[in-house]
């Protein structure tokens, strides 16, 4: 008995969607524990979403259709990525989408949609958030694509399934210089793209320090639920990408149900560990000033560039 490719894709989307709020719950829990608090239950973000789906929808008076469409675009793009990336199986559920460049640009679509929605109501803070988000996204782009470059050199392909398969076939590559450099660069980008400390503080209440939050200040009810779900799924997808690219062990290479089930568990565990590590790291750092963020991104860019260079010269 085997699991069909479409079923794997659907499974991945379900797992990512289901675990995304839980991952947010885990990061909050870890943070609370390190701060000496008890913290809310891990399932609390799900409760928040359940409530938001039933609340009233509000649209700012000057906003256009973009405002309503953006949350849908955010969730759709990240779902498509979740279906295409080999989180559970290398059998490339959606062959035409499972390319690292495609994935990077699909995630950018979500960012752009939200930035436009931030500008749409015509408020000061929405524009500010959009401007900052696009600044960070634009500066992170070189790192993203160079990290992709570095990863695709050993596999001779930017197809995710191929990269994962290549790493599985030669596990020692995972601790090579280029891989570690690319990992470091990618980690910085994940932090920047997911809007975590020290680039952005997801828990801030002060509008002037906001990036992501400022864009979504206007959303309420189901729209807000979609935006928050999208952000959480994005975090899972980014951490999952990191897990799949740098520690692909456990990913199913066949379609046997037992292996797929095991791979699902491995995926959840890996993302959980990475999320907890991220939350732990966040306790130790303060938010950077906005104009220090380019320095961080420049550093990650250099790491990615070195990864590419090294992968060529030390090969």
């Amino acid at each position, binding site marked *: 008995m085997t699991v069909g490719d479409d079923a794997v894709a659907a499974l991945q989307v379900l797992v990512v969607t289901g675990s995304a709020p839980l991952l947010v719950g885990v990061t909050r829990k870890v943070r609370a524990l390190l701060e000496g608090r008890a913290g809310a239950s891990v399932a609390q973000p799900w409760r928040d979403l*359940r409530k938001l789906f039933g609340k009233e*929808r509000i649209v700012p008076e000057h906003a256009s259709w973009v405002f309503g469409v953006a949350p849908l675009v955010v969730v759709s793009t990240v779902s498509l990525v979740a279906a295409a990336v080999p989180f559970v199986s290398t059998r490339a559920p959606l062959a035409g989408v499972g390319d690292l460049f495609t994935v990077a640009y699909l995630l950018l679509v979500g960012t752009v949609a939200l930035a436009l929605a931030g*500008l*749409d109501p015509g408020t000061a803070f929405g524009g500010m958030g959009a401007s900052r988000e*696009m600044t960070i996204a634009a*500066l992170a*782009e070189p790192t993203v*694509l160079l990290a992709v470059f570095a990863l695709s050199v050993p596999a*001779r392909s930017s197809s995710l399934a191929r990269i994962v398969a290549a790493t599985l076939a030669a596990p020692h590559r995972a601790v090579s210089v280029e891989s570690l450099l690319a990992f470091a660069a990618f980690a910085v980008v994940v932090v920047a793209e997911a809007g975590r400390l020290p680039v952005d503080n997801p828990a801030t209440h002060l509008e002037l320090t906001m990036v992501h939050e400022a864009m979504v200040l206007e959303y309420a009810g189901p729209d807000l639920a979609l935006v928050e779900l999208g952000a959480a799924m994005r975090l899972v997808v980014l951490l999952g990408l990191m897990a799949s690219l740098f520690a692909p062990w456990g990913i199913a290479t066949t379609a046997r149900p037992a292996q797929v089930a095991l791979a699902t568990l491995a995926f959840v565990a890996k993302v959980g560990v990475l999320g907890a590590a991220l939350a732990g790291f966040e306790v130790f750092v303060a938010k950077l000033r906005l104009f220090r963020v380019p320095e961080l991104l420049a550093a990650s860019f250099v790491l990615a560039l070195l990864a590419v260079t090294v992968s*060529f010269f030390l090969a």
Partner: protein
Amino acid sequence: MTTAGAGLLAACVLGLAAAVAGVGLPRRARAWAVGVATALMALGALVAALAVIIGDRAFTARLPSVLPLSGVTIALDPLGALFVVVAAVVAVPVAVYGVGYALHGPDGRAFHAVVPLFVLSLLLVPAAGSVTTLLVLWELMAVASTLLVLADHRRSPAARDAGQWYAVMTHLGLVAILIGLVVFAGHAGGESFAVLRARGPHLSSSVRSAVFLLALVGFGSKAGVVPLHVWLPKAHPEAPSHISALMSGVMVNLGVYGIVRVGWDLLGGGPRWWGVVVLAVGAVSALFGVLHALVSSDLKRLLAYSTTENVGLMLIGVGAAGLFAADGHRTLAAIAMAAALLHVLNHALFKALLFLGAGSVLTATGTRDLDRLGGLARSMPVTTATFAVGALAIAALPPLNGFVSEWLLLQSLVHSLPSTSATVAVAMPVAVAVVALTGGLAAATFVKALGTGFLARARSEEAEAAHDPTVAMQVAMVALAGGCVAAGVAPTVAAVPLERATAVLGPLSTAVAFRGSGSSLRLNGISGSMSPAAIAVGLVIAACVVLGMLRAVGSPRARRRAEAWGCGRTVQTARMEYTATSFAEPLQRVFDDVLRPDLDLDVSHASESRYHIDAVRYRHGIRDAVDTGIYQPLLRAVGGWGRWARRVQNGSIHRYLAYALVAVLTVLVVAR
């Protein structure tokens, strides 16, 4: 007579007829007649080009009697045909748009007579088959476009200045092309492209390099590469918008066409450094262009700089192709070249669309200043929706067309490693970084253009009172937007034409870039595939599922309109919004060292106390560093030289005779 010949002949006849109609018909019928004839002309050329591509056979014709001495040679091969297709695909909607635009823009006899001639020259330049033919058509294109840039000169003095710049730059470019091609023809012993193609690869390397560099400079000035781009941000904003669309969408492409045609067809490719030079020029243009586009708050100027950026991306592809071809990687070279050529088509589609959108905004509001626009999404829904498609496409977002060519380009660059050559190993990471940074900044730029120009609240009364333009203009924009979506979802259609076009280029022949298998685009020779259709379908399915889930959990569907949340402020006005300038400010600050903005802050205090501020004046401007750093000193030097020359030449007949005497003496002494 073949289809191709008939199509081209029809195009020429219709073009001339349209020009005559422009001069001869009364005002009311003029715009319609010229528009229809121009569109038909473009369709004729389109048929001809498609016949050449489908038949995969070049069409050649010699008309010895048309021009004295050399005659006219027409040779339309698949590479040229591809550029004709691009020109025609843009020209048809632009012609339709022009019918509606005539109500708002210039409407004179001369204007209507020149437009079809300009379009005709754009359609015929890629079909030129000899040096003379190319130069004549090129000059026709240059003169026609100069006249069109000047069309609005009565209303705006800036147009006069722009026209002057454009005329000078374009003719300096022509001189470079002229010298290059004449030298080439002289050494090859013939001026038809067939002769050049046969002899080109066997000429001495110094001649070949000289010809290549001259062609790069000459065609590069038309393509708007840095540092020859200065005319572009001056001329494009001042030209009538559909003319800007033609200039940005089609004419600059012909610069790229010239570089490819001369460098990799007629000369048959060259050493590695040709590729490196083109790549470097492309990289600098891409970054410089996008940075200036980012900080421009004039919508059409922004689009003009973005043209420089996109030409840069095309040249990165061309340069990479040259580099790979010199190293013997034909497959990679074919992919890079295909990426560049596909980007030519894509850029033509979305840039024309964006300029038409900007033209609609300009006619509706009278301003191009993004800081005074806003709120158009509700007053101009069609323009906003089509502009949004163009903006997202140019930001290379899937599933639109800009993404496909950018993906192809990145794939070709990434697969160059591991390589044995240090040049490739150093150039490729840098090229990828440049493409990536350009892509990221372009996304920010067009979020700015769309978000502050069309969304948000109206920042001026003019923007408040805007409305969608006439039906003809709407049809044109919708058609181009449809083109962007179609080219994005089904790029596999372009596989065969691109294959045949790249096969024309000697060093790339027999290599296939990519094939369409089903809906997905599969690279040839290296591992890589992408299916834009699957992305589009996947996104639609995902959106439907999400909507269905929302319905299933019983989310309310009605939305309440409420005042935007302004932290409880009692008054909230459009003046509190982020403007285009403020949107770009963080990135401008990051790239301070490159952009060098002029900032000026005047604080005047009340006379009673220094603690009370009377007024604060903040001025901010960004000048083009190439303009101020290279051209202005150059112009000053030329001006100084001119003053000196005036002293020498004071009109006294005696002095002139004395000069003649000195000259004769010098000749005698030197020739002794």
